[in-house]
């Protein structure tokens, strides 16, 4: 690839920043540097990448659900270094029975909505995120839509509306 020298420079910078943390570096299919860490080292990794490797912005936090396999969730944090014009993806695998990760809202406040979305769609919790609640679905919704076992057409999609409608009707009938 034509970007090979830049790629090498990025990897050296990351390796230097992450000295002493248990991690593997690899290259994904699109040529981006990927760092695999476990759950306990995630926060420290992100902190060092921000402070010592210049990754000033978080681009997205999302998860991949590999359902029958365990650990099923692969949570990806992608970071962007404004000054170096490069990116890194930090991947962490978590089990389906205890999907929790440390939050990085204290590092980048912009991660707030991303983590809320990830929690909403996959049910992956983020420790240390105070306002962790659903983002896109209603707050009373019971399911996590992007999990593989959830059907595309949903489970009782109109349940909340019907409850609201019944309550409204009962209130009106009591008052009239």
């Amino acid at each position, binding site marked *: 690839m034509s970007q090979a020298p830049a790629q090498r420079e990025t990897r050296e910078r990351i390796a230097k920043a992450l000295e002493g943390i248990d991690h593997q570096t690899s290259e994904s299919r699109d040529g981006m540097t990927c760092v695999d860490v476990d759950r306990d080292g995630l926060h420290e990794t992100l902190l060092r990448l921000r402070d010592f490797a210049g990754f000033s912005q978080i681009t997205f936090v999302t998860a991949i659900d590999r359902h029958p396999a365990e650990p099923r969730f692969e949570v990806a944090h992608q970071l962007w270094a404004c000054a170096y014009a490069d990116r890194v993806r930090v991947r962490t695998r978590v089990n389906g029975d205890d999907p929790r990760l440390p939050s990085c809202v204290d590092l980048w406040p912009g991660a707030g909505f991303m983590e809320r979305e990830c929690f909403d769609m996959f049910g992956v919790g983020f420790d240390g995120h105070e306002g962790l609640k659903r983002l896109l*679905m*209603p707050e009373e919704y019971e*399911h996590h*839509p992007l999990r593989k076992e*959830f*059907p*595309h*057409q*949903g*489970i009782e*999609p*109109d349940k*909340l*509306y*019907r409850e*609201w*409608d019944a309550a*409204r*009707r009962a*209130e*009106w009938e009591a008052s*009239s």
Partner: protein
Amino acid sequence: MGPLTPSALEPVETADAGFLATRADALVNWGRKNSLWPMPLGLSCCGIELMAMIGPKFDIARFGAEAARFSPRQCDLLIVAGTLTWKMAQACRTIYDQMPDPKWVIAMGVCSSSGGMYDSYAVVQGVDSLLPVDVYVPGCPPRPDAVIDALLKLQKRIERENPLKRVISGPATELDDTGTGARVYQPNAAVRRSMLDRHPHAPRAPRPLPHPGGEEEPS
């Protein structure tokens, strides 16, 4: 401005309503149909085409419907433009309830007509599971010409209503099912109460045609 058309001038076959009422009906209908105030519920892509419709090229002011008000209390035509989700459904129903009678609904685009391309967990499969719809407009999004056509069709429909009949034969004693204390009024008698209890993914039961000038709900 449309003329006083002959179809509205035909006498009504009731004991109380005679020639005078027919003339008055025609006058009221003529006023109503040429001064529809739309409430543009611009939810998604169709909202942009709705803006284009109000904009300079299509200019629905030519049909007397340019006074778009974003307060439902001032409007009599709800244009549901775009994808309605179950999260938004409560707001949509509330807006409909807050609109004063008489009121009409245009479902603009396939999403609001039938769910369209979104057969997913979050989308209402057609707003007619919440509201009575008068005109459906297909297209994703429909061109503004198509929505103007829907507007003209709705105007034709308004022409056939008998607004004074209820005044002459006394107010309806039955309360509407909207929960707002409104009386049952003929333009919205097309929706049956049981429609709300239908599961949106269940196959559609054949619907009776909207009753244009009837006294009761069609059974």
